[in-house]
């Protein structure tokens, strides 16, 4: 059975993480991977092009070379290896898993916060302190979105958990209660 993309991402990311850790280059590697993620999300077809069987190696080589040159030697060898094993279209899963490992080591929590109105700096500060306490993290990175549909309150989505304190959810719950469902 073919390996699924999560397994592939986990294996490559694990290897890179351990290597970077032994070279004490974790932070740098992480920053570089963020760069890679940006390149790959901006050029959606890049991963597919680099693994495309219909293109010859000579055609793909200039692309990978120009991609590589801006990175450190460790990252260059990593990219070359991923390219050689034709896993370039799974590179975002590797970045994701690397990020998860990095976050775990540094106790970083990434939270998606949805509110009806935009949060100001003080509110965001207070919220992140609360989230940090709740999840036992030392640092919280908040991505906030504004969705007037939820009427009021906050929805926090962090590490596979959802804390839903929105007015919309409370209203639906009251509705279900009143209709006895």
């Amino acid at each position, binding site marked *: 059975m073919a390996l*699924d993309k999560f*397994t592939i991402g986990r294996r490559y990311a694990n290897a890179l993480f351990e290597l970077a850790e032994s070279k004490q280059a974790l932070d740098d590697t992480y920053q570089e991977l963020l760069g890679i993620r940006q390149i790959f999300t901006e050029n959606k077809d890049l991963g597919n092009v680099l693994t495309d069987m219909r293109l010859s190696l000579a055609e793909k080589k200039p692309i990978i070379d120009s991609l590589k040159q801006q990175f450190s030697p460790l990252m260059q060898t990593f990219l070359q290896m991923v390219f050689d094993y034709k896993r370039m279209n799974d590179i975002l899963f590797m970045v994701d898993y690397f990020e998860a490992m990095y976050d775990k080591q540094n106790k970083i929590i990434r939270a998606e916060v949805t509110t009806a109105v935009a949060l100001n700096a003080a509110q965001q500060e207070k919220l992140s302190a609360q989230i940090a306490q709740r999840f036992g993290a030392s640092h919280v990175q908040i991505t906030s979105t504004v969705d007037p549909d939820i009427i009021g309150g906050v929805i926090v989505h962090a590490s*596979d*958990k*959802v*804390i*839903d304190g929105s007015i919309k959810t409370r209203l639906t*719950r009251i509705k279900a*209660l*009143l209709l006895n469902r």
Partner: protein
Amino acid sequence: MSIKAEEISALIKQQLEHYDDQLVVDEVGTVTYVGDGIARAHGLDNVMSNELLEFSNGSYGVAQNLESNDVGIIIFGRFDDIREGDQVKRTGRILEVPVGEELIGRVVNPLGQPIDGLGEIKTTKTRPIEFKAPGVMQRQSVFEPLQTGLKAVDALVPIGRGQRELVIGDRKTGKTSIAIDTIINQKGQNMICVYVAIGQKESTVKNQIETLRKYGAMDYTIVLTAGPSEPAPMLYIAPYAGSAMGEEFMYNGKHVLIVFDDLSKQAAAYREISLLLRRPPGREAYPGDVFYLHSRLLERSAKLSDKLGGGSMTALPFIETQAGDISAYIPTNVISITDGQIFLESDLFYSGTRPAIDAGASVSRVGGAAQIKAMKKVAGTLRVDLASYRELESFAQFGSDLDAATQAKLNRGRRTVEVLKQPLHRPLPVEKQVLILYALTHGFLDAVPVDDIGRFQSELFAFFDSNHKDLLDTIHNTGNLPDEKDMDAAINSFMSGFSATGQDHAEADDQADDAKSGTN
């Protein structure tokens, strides 16, 4: 009629009082694949096996496969509006169905929701659909009879309360009729019946319900149906849901009869789910745990000890064979799990022997202990007699020079087969079964022409009902055979008034009778 606004607001206020505003932390995952009643979800790291999950469209599912990267989920309900990327939420519960007296007389789906259009079922209790079967100390051996009302079953393969008796045969051999007749005969026997239809045509199920209603059997019956148009997960859980509904009564000291019609379709549904969940296929492409699928289900039917109230759940699982092949995978599995089987044969069915029970291949491993004494006495040698008749029958076709003993055996055999025939939906009370079998085994029928036996039987019953009710009552109340002298005298007095067809002047009348018994 006017509705007062104050009353409504008072009601709402009262209900709102119970609304406690709590922040709940939900654990969620993301759907990565959906189709064919199956979903896979990423995340849900702490989910437990068989836990109930809720999709964002309101459908529920059950976690089946916990793998390193994702969770395989079977979906109950709509899955056509679940998309990749949707959220799926843990509930921390396991799948439960509503149970209780309120379900009796209703038609429900495997989730316990009514589908008969008779409105909401207001149950107060629920039970998990998967429940551990009672252990050794919680049981006792089977001793009370379950009267099916079918002579061929009650005499040859008696069933006790708490037994699991397999009904096996090809399609169109009268399996469902046995179940329906048995349910009809439970009227006034202090029995609650659960009829679980798995993958049966909706039109067939509708007919069965109408039949049950016509004979007043819906007053003590729950019908649970998962039609062929339902997704496989519904068919898979149907017998477990039915067992949960039956268990509620069993653990309350009542007697339950549960019919699974049929388990081969459930096995096929489970095979479908397993293959979609990518579990490795084994023999006939069934997954490795298909034996456990049926053994854990049938083990839940039991006779409970007196300490637990002495309730019982008798199971009649059905298996459909292909061209009489009982050595296929699922039939052998279920035969080895159950306490005996009733084997129905299409050849017998088409030759007019209905119910088409093959006496040689049918057995009951525990039911003998549950037979009433009178029945044991009259039916004791019936099986052997019938078997030796079948043997002689094929042999006797070659020549006519047979000695008197063989002739007598053949004669008796032909009449035995005739007596065991029984028309549809006409179950017989046990005392009448004993009566006709007594007449048979004591040779009263030997002089009656084979064609007249149907008529003989009905007239004998009518005669006893009006002239010798006391004898029937003795059998019914004590379970013992009355004094043989009384029985013989009563039957002889009937025989003197009985004339075979052709000897009577009222020929036209008898022919009409014969034609009737012939079609039965």
